[in-house]
């Protein structure tokens, strides 16, 4: 009999042992570093959650090995392979000869080399020992899991089920980003957070803090400290190739094998997570079993070929219904079919190519997962059933999608009219009580009777309640991705507390996977204006100017405009601007209409460098590119002018210092004139202040662009402080209510000047607006130029690669 040595007793090796002992003819020795035979590693999560015991997941008990005559050397690590002598050496140091060797060393969990990673209480999630450490935690103790992938979430859910206080820290923007798209990731996160698991996405770990050699807390890059008794790293696995590499076998990411599972040495085979086959490495069990089968055939001298097949993923967390299968990457000519049911929290997405399904993601209702997986594996032509495909195998005809699903799904206590505090239940009650027109509902409940931005929603409620008896007026939708208008979307973001773009797309039933160039900037603005603390600005949803913090010109170069507070500058600042113009060969230097200096024709990759130079002189971004505060133009006022009545320059500077950096629905330009001669042209600005002897006249809604508009009086106040408060309150009211890309005059025309005056005149409301603005500024009032001066960020402004240089080599 020939000697067969197998290194490793994981799931692939377990299957191989079955095949070779069935065929017979081998004197088999099985090494395993873990002190036990093969068990179903995939089922560790149910063991952790308490749904199963370890005994239930053992696939090969000692009796099995005995019956099959396998020599077991468990708890023993193979230290060397001598391919010339054809021996392996275990911990006993005595070389054991082999005729054929199979390496099945599996993979090692990746441990991020953070400071403190070697503390006691920092573990991976790989084997029974790790599982037992997690199970040993008492209810109320704290655990942190780094990694929001499949394994990390199973560990988190398992510990949470045992009463442990669990926080998941994930580097990427959404959970399980390799298997799920953003929308499904959002639903999953919502479910886990709803259960009481703390989930932190877009967070990078910095350091593990310990005391007396034991882990105490995880410190994040943003400074947050998460106290914990156990820290689990579930950030991925790496094929365990060290032993094979030391033996001189060809390895890349894994141990190289051919279609027969043979390594670069004809007498050495490899299977499982340690191998690399045609550039592919493996983490799911189905292809590993296939490899075991092929390896067994190869050992028996039969011909067999390993082909990697499609596999599907299911998250083993009780109650989280999630399915993902197939390919989402690297294919041309693909299309998406997306189905969302906000009311039931369902999301389904199919990826099609040449009339075949090649990928499927499902959340909330995965009953059809198996069927779709079948379509993927079989490459079924779906042209005939394409129209109804997403509804699954049982669907033949039926209801069409309801465009009013989002409103229908709102709970009765959801606020529809913010001005008058009217909730959905009250409106439905009024409609059922006989108010069958918009005017009727307004008279009965006051809903949509003030600023009017919720009109669309009230109409949808009328339609949903009355059915065909109510004729919907056609509202202008935001874009082709939704039937909802801007006003509807704004209102629903507030009332449904939607705090991410994925939440908006899902809960409001977007028909595209991730919006378009029309809705993305609008939704991004609404979210950051309504949830300044919770929402994180998405640069990829901004137009180029706001992403680059400079204005793109027709030739692709940019213009750079530093801020000059109220139009006041110094010799030092002017010198810095002149030096920068020289250094970066700026072709055009122009004085703008907003009393500052524009450097035109700067190359995109030079932007961070020119900002750094300007920043050294104290100059910050002028936001000349932003839907935000642009300039506050001033005249010299009482300082120098013989007609000046107040310190107009001083007020202008104060306003600009208070308001700069804020994002608004469209750009906002201001001016302060020191007397009614109005040298600062305040009467055609979005906000204009004209100083008079007795105080300050504040007007709003002026324009001097495509439309020419004179400001309308808002209020007259006596002190400079009051002038500041009223202007800030007005800007915040505009930020909270206007449609994206409506200048103040357009917005005022919709809501009415009287409504604006009333809101600003109310002291309580004014105070609330000022405070809301201050909160937003505490986050957004930062110089974007200074933030982009570091090397890493600056590199992103240059090309990703320059192949013209490589070619010349």
């Amino acid at each position, binding site marked *: 009999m020939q000697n067969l040595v197998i290194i490793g007793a994981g799931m692939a090796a377990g299957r191989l042992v079955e095949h070779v002992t069935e065929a017979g003819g081998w004197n088999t020795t099985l090494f395993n570093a873990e002190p036990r035979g093969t068990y179903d590693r995939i089922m560790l999560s149910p063991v952790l959650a308490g749904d199963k015991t370890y005994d239930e997941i053992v696939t090969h008990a000692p009796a099995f090995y005995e019956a099959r005559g396998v020599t077991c050397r468990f708890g023993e690590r193979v230290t060397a392979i001598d391919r010339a002598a054809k021996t392996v050496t275990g911990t006993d140091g005595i070389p054991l000869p082999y005729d054929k060797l199979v390496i099945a060393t599996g993979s090692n969990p990746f441990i991020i080399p953070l400071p403190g990673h070697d503390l006691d209480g920092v573990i991976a999630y790989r084997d029974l020992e790790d599982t037992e450490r997690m199970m040993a935690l008492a209810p109320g103790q704290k655990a942190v899991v780094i990694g929001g992938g499949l394994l990390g979430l199973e560990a988190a859910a398992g510990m949470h089920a045992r009463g442990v206080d669990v926080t998941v820290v994930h580097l990427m923007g959404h959970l399980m980003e390799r298997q799920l798209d953003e929308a499904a990731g959002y639903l999953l996160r919502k479910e886990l957070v709803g259960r009481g698991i703390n989930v932190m996405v877009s967070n990078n770990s910095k350091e593990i803090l310990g005391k007396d050699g034991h882990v105490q807390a995880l410190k994040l890059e943003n400074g947050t400290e998460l106290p914990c008794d156990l820290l689990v790293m579930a950030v991925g696995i790496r094929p365990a190739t060290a032993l094979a590499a030391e033996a001189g076998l060809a390895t890349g990411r894994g141990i190289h094998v051919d279609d027969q599972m043979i390594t670069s040495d004809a007498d050495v085979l490899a299977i499982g997570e340690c191998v690399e086959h045609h550039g592919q490495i493996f983490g799911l069990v189905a292809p590993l079993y296939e490899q075991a089968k092929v390896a067994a055939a190869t050992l028996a001298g039969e011909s067999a070929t390993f082909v990697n097949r499609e596999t599907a993923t299911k998250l083993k967390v009780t109650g989280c219904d999630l399915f993902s299968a197939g390919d989402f990457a690297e294919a041309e000519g693909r299309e998406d079919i997306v189905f969302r049911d906000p009311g039931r929290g369902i999301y389904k997405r199919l990826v099609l190519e040449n009339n075949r399904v090649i990928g499927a993601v499902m959340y909330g209702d995965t009953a059809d997962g198996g069927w779709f997986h079948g379509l993927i594996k079989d490459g079924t032509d779906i042209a005939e059933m394409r129209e109804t495909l997403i509804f699954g195998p049982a669907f033949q005809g039926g209801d069409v999608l309801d465009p009013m699903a989002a409103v229908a799904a709102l709970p009765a206590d959801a606020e529809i009219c913010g001005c008058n505090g009217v909730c959905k239940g009250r409106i439905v009650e009024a409609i059922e009580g006989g108010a069958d027109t918009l005017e009727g509902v307004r008279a009965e409940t006051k809903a949509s009777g003030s600023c009017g931005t919720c009109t669309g929603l009230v109409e949808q409620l009328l339609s949903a309640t009355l059915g065909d008896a109510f004729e919907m007026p056609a509202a202008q939708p935001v874009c082709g991705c939704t039937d909802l208008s801007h006003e509807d979307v704004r209102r629903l973001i507030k009332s449904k507390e939607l705090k991410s773009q994925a939440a908006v797309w899902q809960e409001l039933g977007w028909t595209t996977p991730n919006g378009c160039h029309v809705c993305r900037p609008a939704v991004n603005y609404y979210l950051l204006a309504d949830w300044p603390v919770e929402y994180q600005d998405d640069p990829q949803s901004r137009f180029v100017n706001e992403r*680059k913090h400079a204005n793109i010109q027709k030739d692709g170069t940019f213009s750079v405009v530093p801020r000059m507070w109220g139009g006041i500058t110094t010799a030092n600042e002017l010198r810095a601007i002149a030096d920068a113009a020289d250094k970066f060969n700026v072709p055009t230097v122009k004085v703008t209409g907003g009393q500052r200096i524009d450097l035109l024709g700067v190359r995109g990759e030079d932007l961070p460098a020119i900002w750094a130079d300007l920043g050294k002189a104290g100059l910050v971004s002028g936001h000349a590119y932003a839907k935000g505060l642009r300039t506050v133009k001033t005249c010299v006022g009482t300082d120098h002018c013989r007609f000046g009545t107040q310190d107009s320059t001083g007020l202008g500077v104060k306003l600009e210092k208070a308001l700069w950096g804020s994002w608004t629905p469209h750009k906002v330009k201001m001016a302060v004139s020191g007397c009614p001669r109005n040298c600062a042209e305040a009467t055609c600005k979005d906000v204009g202040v004209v100083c008079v002897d007795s105080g300050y006249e504040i007007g709003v809604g002026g324009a001097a662009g495509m439309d020419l508009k004179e400001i309308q009086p808002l209020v007259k106040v006596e002190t400079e402080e009051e002038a500041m408060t009223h202007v800030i309150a007005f800007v915040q009211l505009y930020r909270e209510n206007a449609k994206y890309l409506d200048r103040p005059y357009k917005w005022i025309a919709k809501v009415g000047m009287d409504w604006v005056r009333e809101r600003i005149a109310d002291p309580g409301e004014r105070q609330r607006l000022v405070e809301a603005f201050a909160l937003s500024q505490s986050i957004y009032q930062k110089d974007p130029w200074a933030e982009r001066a570091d090397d890493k960020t600056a590199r992103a402004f240059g090309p990703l690669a320059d192949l013209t240089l490589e070619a010349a080599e």
Partner: protein
Amino acid sequence: MSWIDIGALDDIPLRGARKVKTKLGCVAIFRTDDQTVFATSNTCPHKGGPLAEGIVHDRKVTCPLHNWVFDLETGEALGADDGQIETFAAKVEAGRILIDAALLGQQAA
């Protein structure tokens, strides 16, 4: 076809793009929501807008200058506009972006 490694997938923001200078002109590399990369000419055929600065949505990009929308897979202008951008082979392997070596502008090794 031979491939050249031009950088890590994470060097491009999700739903974003970067440009690469080649002998054949600037090429835009896009990273779509589904973690796929596409390579096309960086220049809009309308008025020469830099497409790598556009908003990336689904498998499309909108030119930053005048909102022409292109299908990244076919290079075709969508909607009412008529035009075409050149597309190049690109793929992701082990977190690295690979593009067609022909873009080096010479016979690749």
